[in-house]
């Protein structure tokens, strides 16, 4: 039995080194047995019988010991945890006291750390929210976008959606509807979907039912499912809304029955950042591919069967489109078959910005490195300051382990404080940069600092401090105390290795800053280039008012409506001219129609060429300053029934009839609706400034009166935003049933179209600015430290007759050498790094010499100042004072 053969006497001393639960239990039980045996023997029992009786009373000794040991271990662990926590708190308090003793060090190092971490966390939040976060649908990895290789209609969506690897597939389209009869008339955005939509996205309505496959039939497709938000805001979350008919105009019906309400928080897929308020069925009479005119299906999304890859689906989609071409060769081109495919839904949403975001994250990594270099220098300098103190404590017996632990705790305290401030800073930054509203990034509206971001913040702060802060500190702690004491006694300044590390840091910081400043400079140049691109129309002093009359206005009524709107608004004080166009420039909205031009035979194989198509009213070109290059504008005489007319832009004129007069030629839209070219206007960059203008046709509204939605442009004498209210009122007076979708300056719309570029440029400019500040502070810090530690040496030199100029030269040379080296290294780094930016640049080369020179000049100037100021100070030293010190 364990008690008899329990360990030797020395085991009880083991306890002094740390608790030994086994020994404690043995001793306690042995004491009990011995006492009991003594008692029984004193009552007359033989020792042998007494021991047997004592053990019998205690029961199963082995089980008892095991139980007690387990209990003791638990007690010990608890005590150990409490003690180490208390020790940690003690150490943390100590290092906080130390920080308070050096407020400048504390402030500068915390600010540096917080800036570096704040910028990184902000950037990572964007990367996480946009790229890493899974799509908000069940099993999002199984969602794919099917790419039919060309504009899709419902028939095409059905064909590619029938691929065998797919479980369910739906076409998607965005459609504007006008809601009346509930509060103010409102324009809402609906998503047109097929019945399997709900299966594809793994969602079912919170109230009511999903759409039925037969609701594709236009006779019964007058149903609608409301978004949770619309149901709550417009209908007060009325639970009895199912079955109610709403006056909801558009998409082939003037009213629709509510059959469902979506769950709160359901994010409409592929909504292009529009707020989707309702879902309606994609609907049309049974058609073949050839006569199906539902060309507005703008995406097709499917759920793959488990275990399928987008690559396999892509092959099937390609085969399906090839099969369609065999049947409808004149409608589907070779090109379409080649580009048909499929990609994961997440990839299709964020694929375009992926490379850019990773580039920006890499850039912020450089900022963080810069901050870390600063921190390393600060800690190094602090280590130098405390060298003597540490040496004294080491000599007095403080263990090396103890000193290193203190440094570790110092680092953790710095990391936690800096990381905490950094996270707050990141939040502020995300707000200030307007990422959610103005970045133009997909999925940016719901960025949040989730657990992954906080984990990143913690890892980055601990990593920065531990790697960059503790290496110098450990070196200081590992130093031979005797040397530290000796050098402290009559110090000629910081140790030579410390100074060398400092100057190496200057080179590193300057190089990092050079890369960032060059990147920022390139984007700045490219933004300027983009701003100086002529969009082809005058955006200053133009107010764009988007109107959405009900579909029943189509025809003569809508033509006269817009004539009256133009008449009324042009009469407003401050309005010079007015005219309307049916698609807002600088947005993704586009109509492109096939055409046949006079003298150009139709292609023998494949579809007709197509060109952008715009419906305008008289005066539009003059209002937005599109130059009339030849012929005339559309006129009020160009009415329905009159000879069909239209204008083309310069790009179309030059490609169709180079060197010839296009006036009087005939163009047939769709190959069968003719108009006579009566004028040529200047090119407009309709989609975005960085894309070249495309061929374009303009036709008079009066001859194409089926178009009801138009944007009325007002040329104003002053700030157009100020006129928005008056214009809205005038339009509402004319017909209150027509919702004003939007009224905002055209310049703002143009600005939005380059929002993502502006955002990227803004972010990189900010990083560049941070790099300049951090670099300047860092270089100044190293120089100030180096000169301060050599003041004594300078004092002696000057006392021995060196001129102050000689001292200045000496200390400048020490600082400028690494600076120049840093600039050189940075230039090489910038040449490589800028290649990553190539996709973001416009009108400037990644290796642009002017930008490189300018960056080097700015950085060099600032860094030189940071080097010179401390060096100059060194020459103002009074030798007597320095020599007396210590």
């Amino acid at each position: 039995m364990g008690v008899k053969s329990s360990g030797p006497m020395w085991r009880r001393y083991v306890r002094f080194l740390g608790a030994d639960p086994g020994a404690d239990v043995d001793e306690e039980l042995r004491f009990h047995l011995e006492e009991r045996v003594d008692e029984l023997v004193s009552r007359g029992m033989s020792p042998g019988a007494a021991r047997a009786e004592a053990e019998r009373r205690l029961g199963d000794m082995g089980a008892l010991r095991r139980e007690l040991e387990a209990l003791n271990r638990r007690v010990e662990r608890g005590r150990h945890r409490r003690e180490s926590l208390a020790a940690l708190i003690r150490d943390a308090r100590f290092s906080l006291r130390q920080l308070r003793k050096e407020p400048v060090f504390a402030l500068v190092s915390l600010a540096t750390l917080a800036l570096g971490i704040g910028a990184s966390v902000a950037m990572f939040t964007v990367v996480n929210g946009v790229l890493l976060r899974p799509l908000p649908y069940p099993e999002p990895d199984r969602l794919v976008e099917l790419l039919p290789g060309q504009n899709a209609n419902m028939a095409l969506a059905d064909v590619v959606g029938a691929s065998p690897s797919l479980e369910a597939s739906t076409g998607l389209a965005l459609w504007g509807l006008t809601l009346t009869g509930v509060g103010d008339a409102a324009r809402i955005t609906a998503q047109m979907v097929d019945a399997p939509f709900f299966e594809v996205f793994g969602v079912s309505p919170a109230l009511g039912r999903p759409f039925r496959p037969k609701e594709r039939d236009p006779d019964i497709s007058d149903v609608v499912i409301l978004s949770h938000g619309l149901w709550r805001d417009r209908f007060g979350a009325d639970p009895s809304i199912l079955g109610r008919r709403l006056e909801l105009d558009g998409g082939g019906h003037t009213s629709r029955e509510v059959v469902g309400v979506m769950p709160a928080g359901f994010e409409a897929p592929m909504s292009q950042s529009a707020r989707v308020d309702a879902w309606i069925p994609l609907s049309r009479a049974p058609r073949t591919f050839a006569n199906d005119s539902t060309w507005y299906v703008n995406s097709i999304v499917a759920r793959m069967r488990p275990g399928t890859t987008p690559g396999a689906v892509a092959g099937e989609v390609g085969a399906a489109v090839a099969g369609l071409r065999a049947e409808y060769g004149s409608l589907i081109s070779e090109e379409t078959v080649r580009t048909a495919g499929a990609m994961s839904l997440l990839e299709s949403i964020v694929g375009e910005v992926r490379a850019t975001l990773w580039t920006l994250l890499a850039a912020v990594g450089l900022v963080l490195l810069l901050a870390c270099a600063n921190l390393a220098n600060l800690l190094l300098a602090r280590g130098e300051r405390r060298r003597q103190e540490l040496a004294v404590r080491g000599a007095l017996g403080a263990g090396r382990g103890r000193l290193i632990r203190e440094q570790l705790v110092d680092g953790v305290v710095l990391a936690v404080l800096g990381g905490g401030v950094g996270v707050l800073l990141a939040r502020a930054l995300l707000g200030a940069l307007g990422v959610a509203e103005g970045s133009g990034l997909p999925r940016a509206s719901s960025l949040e600092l989730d657990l992954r971001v906080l984990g990143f913040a913690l890892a980055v702060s601990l990593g920065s401090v531990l790697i960059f802060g503790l290496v110098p500190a450990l070196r200081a702690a590992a130093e031979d105390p005797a040397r530290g004491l000796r050098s402290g006694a009559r110090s000629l300044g910081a140790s030579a290795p410390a100074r060398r590390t400092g100057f190496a840091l200057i080179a590193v910081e300057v190089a990092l800053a050079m890369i960032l400043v060059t990147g920022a400079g390139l984007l700045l140049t490219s933004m300027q280039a983009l701003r100086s691109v002529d969009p082809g129309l005058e955006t200053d002093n133009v107010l764009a008012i988007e109107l959405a009359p009900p579909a029943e206005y189509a025809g003569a009524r809508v033509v006269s409506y817009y004539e009256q709107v133009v008449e009324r608004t042009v009469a407003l004080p401050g309005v010079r001219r007015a005219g309307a166009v049916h698609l807002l420039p600088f947005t993704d909205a586009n109509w492109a129609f096939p055409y046949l031009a006079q003298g150009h035979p139709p292609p023998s194989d494949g579809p007709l060429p197509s060109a952008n198509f715009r419906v305008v009213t008289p005066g539009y070109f003059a209002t937005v300053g599109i130059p009339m290059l030849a012929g005339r504008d559309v006129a009020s005489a160009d009415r329905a029934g009159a000879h069909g007319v239209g204008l083309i832009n310069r790009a179309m004129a030059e490609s169709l009839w180079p060197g010839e007069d296009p006036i009087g030629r005939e163009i047939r839209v769709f190959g069968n609706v003719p108009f006579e070219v009566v004028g040529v206007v200047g090119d407009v960059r309709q989609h975005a400034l960085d894309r070249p203008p495309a061929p374009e046709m303009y036709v008079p509204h009066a001859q194409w009166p089926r178009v009801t939605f138009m944007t009325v442009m007002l040329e104003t004498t002053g700030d157009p935003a100020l006129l928005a209210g008056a214009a809205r009122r005038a339009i509402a007076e004319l017909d209150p049933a027509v919702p004003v979708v939007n009224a905002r300056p055209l310049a703002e719309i143009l600005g939005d179209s380059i929002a993502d570029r502006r955002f990227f440029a803004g972010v990189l400019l900010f990083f560049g600015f941070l790099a300049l500040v951090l670099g300047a502070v860092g270089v100044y810090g190293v120089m100030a430290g180096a000169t301060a530690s050599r003041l004594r040496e300078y004092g002696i030199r000057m006392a021995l007759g060196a001129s102050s100029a000689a001292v200045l030269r000496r200390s400048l040379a020490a600082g400028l050498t690494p600076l120049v080296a840093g600039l050189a290294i940075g230039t090489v780094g910038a040449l490589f790094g800028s290649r990553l930016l190539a996709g973001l640049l416009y009108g400037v080369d990644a290796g642009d010499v002017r930008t490189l020179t300018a960056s080097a000049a700015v950085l060099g100037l600032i860094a030189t100042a940071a080097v010179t100021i401390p060096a100059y100070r060194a020459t103002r030293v009074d030798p007597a004072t320095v020599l007396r010190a210590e």
Partner: protein
Amino acid sequence: MNTKRQFLQGTLDILVLKTLSWGAMHGYGIANWLEGRTEGVLTIEEGSLYPALHRLEARGLIEAEWRLTEKNRRAKYYSLTPAGRRELTAEAGAWSAFARAVSEVLNGEEAPAWA
């Protein structure tokens, strides 16, 4: 069996706490004192006394310290912590109320309605 043991364990805990309210004592002393005090009615299962002591220690109701006995032997002495004293007051009150209620029924003269 299990419920009985739990019931007994709770009883043992409170008896130990009460014993220690007179002052610090080692496990052997506690066992002897309790046996004498209950006049043998409650035989203290020595095998469950030590787990009870250690559990009370783990809960912070008592604390242990190694001391020498009068006979100069090293023994682990247990004493009440302030938390243990509070626990004793609370549990003793509950126990008395429980005991009173049980004995009320057992000694009562009043018969139930169906008798």
